[in-house]
């Protein structure tokens, strides 16, 4: 029998995990050298988070 798996993540944790995993995948697919991959992953993750939080703040006035 397969045990049920469950995760309780906050919005920020879920967004960060999503951004990290997608950044890693993009980094591995689009760059060959390890140093280039690391740079790409960090830069992509930073932009994901910046834009995600930015859009969150931009929507804040309309949230109520």
């Amino acid at each position, binding site marked *: 029998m397969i045990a049920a798996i469950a995760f309780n993540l906050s919005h920020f944790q879920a967004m960060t995990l999503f951004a990290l995993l997608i950044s890693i*995948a993009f980094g591995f697919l689009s760059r060959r050298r390890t140093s280039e991959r690391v740079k790409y992953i960090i830069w992509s993750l930073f932009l994901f988070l910046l834009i995600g939080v930015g859009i969150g703040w931009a929507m804040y006035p309309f949230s109520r």
Partner: protein
Amino acid sequence: MSEDTATGTTAAAAEATITPSHHQRNEAAAFAIGVAGWFVPGLGHALQKMWGRALGCFLTVGALVFLGIGMRGNLFSSEGGDAFGMLGYVADLGTGSFYFAARALETQGSDVAHAEGDYGTRFLAAAGVLNLLAALHAYEAARGRKA
């Protein structure tokens, strides 16, 4: 006609006859690699000895599916009914064999009434689309395009 010219003509003719079938074989092999990459995330790259990319695809797609199911995301089925359901099914099916593994792991069903379930649905769809992108990348690499 000299022998050299005749030989050159024969070689050119042979190349002209061999190249199309060889090209077709390469196309078929590239297509098979693309399908393998879709069915098992990372296998398309592993078959071409691109170990880093293979491992990266396998782990990221696997993690997205595992987290998506753990967050009780909606795993669409073919009986979705509307266009969005079908679109979600195609995206989820993009994970290949992981779709069926996710079906087996999804013992509690989805819970999209909460934000986590909604995030989980996005994780699952993103995993599928990401794997389709990786399979296309493996296909292009097998065709000899720069990758």
